[in-house]
Structure formats: structure tokens, C-alpha cells
């Protein structure tokens, strides 16, 4: 049967007889007749073949063939075959939250390893078992800072993803927090402005590295200033860049968050992704979401359990640290498999490859007359390009040449209509980059 029902009519008969009713309808006696659906106009079921045909037609309407030079926090990295193969195992995919540790050690140990991998990657001391995505992780971090400090003011650097800033704005305005944005100066955080705003009502300063323009920074000095006022620093990171870049831990940040998509997850048109959050050990109780801890079983054998659950909604109810129930375990395990395959050397090498390819692309783009590449700060694999005309039109024209050329900044930064950010991952070949530069030259001239 199409609805994946396992019972035969004879089974149904027998079950009804045991229950002592003559029809299934009788079991629904509590739903009054007057509450029957006023309409239920859903198409009849179809075969797998028919649905595949339908969805293949829809898939063909997506421009999947464009060569992507678009990033903005979400990157086209290669995913090794072993990642997909392992994460497709039903034992991982079709289990649920490990409430019963004896029959969930697979998920639990993997999440413990994931937490450890995130800690060593970010230079932080404790991580949770994941949040929904990078944007909501940043919101949770801000709320966590507010809880820790008992303060309500949040300072947000304009270099943080504009999408994340919009999310924060929704939550802070609906949930009564004060939220101030500081501008970006020459691609970097506006330090004097942040210092001016920092006071003893400030819960947190939120920063991002590399920032939305692709610029790399070292925020250690801002951390010192924030701590002088008793405020915390939240650093949002691009995890793959940490193969090379200074970690939030090394900068002294209090909470690190990040979008884990770059660690072996497909782009999936926006999700599911992986919300990373890590912090100092002394803040662990204020960290939202599930946490897996190591312990021993009754025979003294090492094992893993959900721990510090008394912080969570199913126990604390209205006093919980967050209303979060699910995490994204499967995505967390997926990123762990990816990180394990890469290993410390592979990650370093991959980050370097991204850096080098982006530099090669920058040099090629710079050769185009009238086009400038921002070099006021060093960058990782994404950089800002200044065009002689409206970037959104240039990007539109590049689509016809087969490229997703970048993300125009005018959409989120009024006055920057001629700017775009361009991302180059390890997947972009020399030929693609040269063809891109050639196409860009043609579009502009």
C-alpha cells in the first residue's frame, strides 16, 4: 500500500474485534461530527515513478548548472563520498534523541566526538551537540550572553552577516532587548565606535571572522575592551577557515558560533545546516541545547549520556535556558565524519588551497580595467570587488554566461550598489577562474 501500512484486511478485522468495535470510525468518537474537515481536497496518491517524474521536472527548473562564485556564508565545497555513504545509514538517520543511552551509544559517542572536534577547531573549551544553523546559533549566543551578564544591550558589528543581523533584530525587538549596529570602516570593525558604545549595560559584542566582506581580523583588542566593561564577546566563524586562521579561543572570545555547512553539508537551498556553538567551561550551564557527557556504566565501562539536562525545557519548562528541543544531530555527525576524513593536516591544506585559489582569482579580476579588488585587509576565500557599474546588473549578465558571479552588496548595504563579494573554493579550477575573468571583462566592457 502506498501509505506504508503493514496490516492486511484480516489483521485489521482481528484488531477491531479485540478492541470490541466494528469499525475504525468508532475510535474517533471524541471528534464530533460537526468537526469533520470542511474540505480535504488533496490529490490522490501517486507511484514513486510518477512522483520522481514530477520532481525531476521541478528540479530541471533550477539553475543547477551555474558555476558558483557565490558564498556569503554558504560555500560550494566538495563532499567526499564516504561522508554521504556513512550518514545515509538508517541506524544514524532513523534514530531519535538518545533518551535511552544503552541503545544510543552510536549517536552519543559521535556527538561527544563532534563536541570535541568543535572545541579543538575553535579553540574553545566546551561545545554543545549543535543548534539549528549559524544564524539561530548567533541568536542563542546573544540570549546566552544576556542571561550570563543579566544585561540587555547587544552591540553588533556591521561586518556580521546581514542575514544574521536581521534575525537578531527580529528576536531582540520582539523579545525586548536593545540592539545597536556599528558600521564597517575599510572592511574592518569600527573600533572607536564599539568602544564608545560599550558600557556596563552591554551584554555582548558580536563579531564575525572573516566578516561578510571576506576580511580577516584579529579581535583580541576588542575582547579586552569588552571584558573591561564586564561584557562578553561572541565571535561568529567560518569553520573551514580555522584550518589556518586565529581561533575565537585564541582571541579570547567568550562564545564562538558558526555555520557548519562548510564542513561536509550540501547547500540544500538553505537547510538543514549546522549551528555551532562553543564557549568557556565556566559558562557551560548557560549554553542552550543538548550536551553529551562522558561517564561510566554500572560495570565501570566508559560510556556517554545526555547530561546537564536540568537546564532544558523538558525539565525546566518555563524556566529553561532556551525552548530548544531538537538539535541537528545528523548534520553534526555528518560534519564530524568530514572533519575525521580531512584530519588536522587535510584541513590545513584545504584552507590553504581555498586561500590560494581566491588569491589567483583576485589577481585575474584585478587585471580587468575599471575593476578594483579591495585589499585594505587580508581575506580568506571570499573578497570584495568594486565594479564600474551596478553589481546586480553585472551578476545578472554573468548568469547568461553560466556563472553565479558573486553576491551584490547593495541589497544589504545601501550605497554599495557597485560592490559584490566573490567566493572561490577548492572546487573552482584554474580554467573556470580564467573563464570567469574573461566573462566578467566582456560583461563590463
Amino acid at each position: 500500500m502506498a501509505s506504508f501500512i503493514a496490516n492486511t484486511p484480516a489483521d485489521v478485522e482481528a484488531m477491531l474485534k479485540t478492541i470490541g468495535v466494528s469499525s475504525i470510525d468508532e475510535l474517533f468518537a471524541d471528534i464530533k461530527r460537526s468537526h469533520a474537515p470542511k474540505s480535504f481536497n488533496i490529490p490522490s496518491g501517486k507511484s514513486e515513478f510518477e512522483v520522481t517524474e514530477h520532481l525531476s521536472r521541478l528540479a530541471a527548473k533550477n539553475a543547477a548548472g551555474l558555476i558558483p562564485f557565490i558564498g556569503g556564508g554558504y560555500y560550494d565545497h566538495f563532499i567526499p563520498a564516504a561522508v554521504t555513504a556513512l550518514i545515509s545509514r538508517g541506524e544514524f538517520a532513523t534514530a531519535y534523541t538518545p533518551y535511552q543511552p544503552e541503545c544510543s551509544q552510536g549517536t552519543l559517542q559521535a556527538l561527544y566526538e563532534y563536541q570535541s572536534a568543535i572545541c579543538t577547531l575553535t579553540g574553545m573549551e566546551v561545545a554543545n551537540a549543535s543548534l539549528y544553523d549559524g544564524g539561530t546559533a548567533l541568536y542563542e549566543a546573544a540570549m546566552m550572553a544576556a542571561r550570563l551578564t543579566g544585561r540587555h544591550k547587544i552591540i553588533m558589528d556591521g561586518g556580521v552577516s546581514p542575514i544574521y543581523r536581521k534575525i537578531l533584530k527580529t528576536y531582540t525587538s520582539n523579545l525586548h532587548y536593545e540592539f545597536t549596529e556599528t558600521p564597517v570602516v575599510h572592511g574592518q570593525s569600527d573600533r572607536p565606535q564599539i568602544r564608545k558604545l560599550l558600557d556596563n549595560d552591554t551584554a555582548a559584542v558580536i563579531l564575525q571572522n572573516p566578516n561578510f566582506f571576506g576580511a580577516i581580523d584579529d579581535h583580541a583588542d576588542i575582547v579586552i575592551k569588552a571584558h573591561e566593561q564586564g561584557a562578553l564577546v561572541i565571535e561568529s566563524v567560518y569553520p573551514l577557515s580555522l584550518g589556518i586562521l586565529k581561533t575565537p579561543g585564541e582571541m579570547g572570545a567568550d562564545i564562538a558560533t558558526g555555520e557548519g555547512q562548510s564542513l561536509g553539508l550540501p547547500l540544500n537551498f538553505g537547510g538543514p545546516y549546522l549551528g555551532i556553538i562553543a564557549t568557556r567551561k565556566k559558562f557551560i550551564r548557560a549554553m542552550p541545547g543538548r550536551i553529551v557527557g562522558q561517564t561510566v556504566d554500572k560495570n565501570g565501562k566508559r560510556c556517554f549520556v545526555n547530561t546537564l539536562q536540568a537546564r532544558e525545557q523538558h525539565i525546566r519548562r518555563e524556566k529553561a535556558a532556551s525552548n530548544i528541543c531538537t538539535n541537528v544531530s545528523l548534520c553534526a555527525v555528518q560534519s564530524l565524519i568530514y572533519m575525521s576524513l580531512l584530519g588536522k593536516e587535510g584541513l590545513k591544506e584545504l584552507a590553504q588551497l581555498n586561500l590560494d585559489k581566491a588569491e589567483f582569482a583576485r589577481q585575474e579580476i584585478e587585471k580587468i580595467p575599471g575593476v578594483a579588488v579591495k585589499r585594505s585587509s587580508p581575506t580568506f576565500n571570499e573578497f570584495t570587488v568594486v565594479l564600474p557599474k551596478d553589481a546586480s546588473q553585472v551578476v545578472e549578465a554573468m548568469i547568461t554566461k553560466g556563472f553565479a558571479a558573486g553576491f551584490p552588496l547593495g541589497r544589504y548595504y545601501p550605497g554599495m550598489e557597485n560592490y559584490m563579494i566573490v567566493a572561490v573554493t577548492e572546487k573552482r579550477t584554474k580554467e573556470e577562474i580564467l573563464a570567469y575573468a574573461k566573462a566578467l571583462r566582456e560583461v563590463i566592457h
Partner: protein
Amino acid sequence: MEVVDHYLYTKEHEWVSIEDNIATTGITDYAQEALGDITFVELPEVGGEVEQFEEFASIESVKAANDIFAPVSGKVIEVNTRLESDPGIINKSAFEKGWLAKVQMSDKEEASNLMTAEEYQKFLESIG
């Protein structure tokens, strides 16, 4: 269930022992047993003011979290810092070594809002 004779009690299962105007507070044997193995205690701030029957501490076990209410009003003058590293003391000695905080009482009359040991014993029997 153990009840100490000369202490006073609340319906939320806190105890208090008053000497001069210093009230030593904690949770009762009944409360520690109901919570199970205690894993974490958040103590009030020394120097802070607390109000009678308002939240002033919280105690967690593996699968429960409970707010603890101040049995009397006043200023917190000392807390049992040993509980931070060894919260299980409360399970072993709820009425002595597991005390939570000492409060300098601002209103000695408040003691009349509390139950005597005898009354608390009856209260425990009534809730079964």
C-alpha cells in the same frame, strides 16, 4: 523521614535554625530524597538581600531542577561553598553539613510564618 526538633520549616521543604538573629537554612531530608542525587547547587550571593518565600537558590539533580525559597527575609552573610564542589553533601547530611546559607534576619516576627517540627511532621504525613 528525619525531622530535627528545634528547627522551623516551610511547605516547600526548607528548614531554618535561628540563633540570635542569624538564620541558617537548608532543604529537608524529605526534599533531598525527593530530588535524588544532587548534582549542582546555585547559592545566593553573599551580601545580597532576600525576601521570605522568594527564590534565592536552586538545586539540580539529574532529572529535576528545583528553586529554593528563602524561609526568612534578610541579608545573606555566608553560603556553604563546599556544596559547589561536592553537592552530594546535601544527600548525606541535609540538616547539618548540607546547609545552604546563613541569613541575618531583618524581621524576627517572620518566624511565626513557619512550621514547627511537629507541624511539619504532620504536614509530611498529610502529603503522604
